[in-house]
């Protein structure tokens, strides 16, 4: 007869069975702990990278841990049909797709001055039919300073300001650069290359490569670039420090008050041998480009009143016809952004640097009658 009493369960007869059960439960728990990374402190977990970003620029509650300063934009994309030969993504049809987005500058300080030699960035979210979305996180520079998530972490740690001096430890930076000629090359490029004078006249690049699949099932790896209709002008790097804190954001708001801004999206096709797994390596300028449509940005709204603040611009959120390439940064961007998103959405939203900026009138619905003329002016 089975015995359910404790003394039956703990009897000598049951000992082997109990040990076997304990081994199964313990083994399953150990495997679970291993899968979750608790047994491998050396594993590069996304939280480590978010911690490094917070250590680098300080923890600013409620804000993105990278590209903390930004401005929402609203617009649309008009496909010309040419892209369908490369990818079946519905964005490429001859149709108009609504877009929201965000201009931002690199760095984790939400009220930093705009006068810095850094990325001008544009993030976009295309709302496609059938609930599909395509999210992009684009930079004005076609390449990235690091090729791998580990190098990104090491770069953040090496350039974290020393609390005593407020500056990175030059020895650490030097040691890192000696190991990473690709980052050194990027830094040299940024120092020399002209910086666009506006968010409006910058190129915006996919940075990473992606895989396109068309209706015939043919796949190829591509990058892409948005090129502005606004003519390029160079920012005077010598006077950057003297410019008003928000001058770049104010400038683009001023342009949008005059009318929409337009970019042409071109898909870039590599030649055999062009690297698809290394975002530090540019593809030569002569690579074939296929223009697939135009992006029109109609208006800017502060993050406080706009549609972009609570959007995670994870570049692996893609429609059918587009998928990640073998670039190791893509998976890392997705998992790191997810951790940052959970952290900041769990904190109260704070007012953005542009919340009280005169260049951005509050939305008409919230506005007292006295300030209506200003709103009309900006809508012209």
């Amino acid at each position: 007869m089975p015995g359910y009493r404790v003394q039956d369960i703990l009897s000598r007869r049951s000992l082997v069975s109990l040990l076997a059960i304990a081994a199964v439960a313990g083994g399953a728990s150990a495997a679970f702990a291993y899968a979750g990374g608790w047994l491998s402190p050396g594993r590069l977990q996304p939280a480590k990278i978010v911690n490094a970003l917070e250590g680098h620029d300080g923890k600013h509650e409620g804000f993105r841990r990278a590209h903390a300063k930004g401005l929402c934009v609203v617009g649309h994309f008009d496909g010309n049909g040419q892209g369908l030969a490369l990818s079946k993504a519905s964005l490429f049809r001859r149709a108009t797709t609504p877009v929201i987005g965000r201009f931002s500058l690199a760095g984790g300080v939400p009220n930093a001055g705009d006068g810095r030699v850094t990325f001008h960035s544009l993030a976009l979210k295309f709302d496609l039919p059938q609930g599909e979305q395509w999210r992009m996180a684009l930079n004005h520079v076609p390449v990235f300073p690091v090729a791998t998530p580990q190098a990104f972490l090491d770069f953040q740690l090496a350039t974290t300001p020393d609390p005593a001096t407020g500056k990175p430890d030059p020895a650490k930076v030097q040691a890192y650069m000696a190991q990473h000629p690709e980052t050194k090359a990027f830094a040299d490029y940024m120092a020399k290359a002209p910086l666009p004078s506006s968010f409006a006249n910058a190129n915006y690049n996919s940075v990473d490569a992606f895989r396109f699949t068309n209706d015939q099932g043919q796949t190829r790896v591509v990058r892409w670039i948005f090129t502005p209709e606004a003519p390029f002008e160079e920012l005077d790097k010598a006077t950057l420090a003297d410019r008003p804190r928000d001058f770049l954001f104010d400038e683009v708001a001023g342009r949008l008050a005059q009318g929409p801004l337009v970019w042409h999206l071109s898909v870039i096709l590599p030649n055999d041998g062009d690297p698809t797994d290394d975002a530090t390596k540019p593809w030569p300028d002569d690579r074939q480009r296929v223009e697939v449509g135009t992006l029109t940005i109609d208006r800017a709204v502060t993050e406080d009143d706009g549609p972009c603040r609570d959007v995670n611009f994870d570049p692996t959120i893609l429609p059918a016809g587009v998928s990640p390439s073998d670039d190791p940064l893509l998976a890392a961007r997705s998992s790191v952004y997810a951790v940052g998103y959970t952290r900041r959405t769990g904190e109260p939203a704070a007012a953005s640097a542009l919340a009280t900026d005169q260049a951005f009138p509050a939305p008409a619905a919230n506005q007292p009658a006295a300030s209506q003329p200003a709103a009309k002016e900006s809508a012209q």
Partner: protein
Amino acid sequence: MKSTTFSGAARLLHWLMAVLIIAMLFIGVGMVSTVGASHNWLVPLHKSVGATLLLLVLIRLAVRATKGTPPLPADMPAPQKAVAHLSHLVLYALMIALPLVGWSMLSAGGYPIIVWGAVHLPPLLSPDRGLYASLRHLHTYLAYALFLTVIAHLSAALMHGLIFKDGVFQSMAAWRTRR
């Protein structure tokens, strides 16, 4: 006379879901703790298996309601029976809650919810940043709770099979339905 085993449908659903739930728990903790390339396919897989499990648990509830369950042994002490019933209640609650919290969490975050490669699930909630963060944390805590409950369930099942030898393990593990 009442059957001493679960119905064939119940046993099939149990073992299919057991495999998927254990896989799901490992995929979940694995995908959130890596920056590696596997993240790219683990996340869509997690959503698709989650949607599959939500469907399966609804079917399972219907099967349970129509086919019933075999009784626990008559001589099993009442407190142990109570623990057994409670643990099954917790398992069902978590099997239903986890996919719904996952779906709600993605809705609150404004994410597209695409499963099985092409099926778009409508959002259950409007985007809400604070709610997203709360649901995201809840999803993790419930998953840990499910893992512990599964381990307890497995250990108890093995005790019935190896120590009590009272037919409870066989009622789910049997290949054929027995009377």
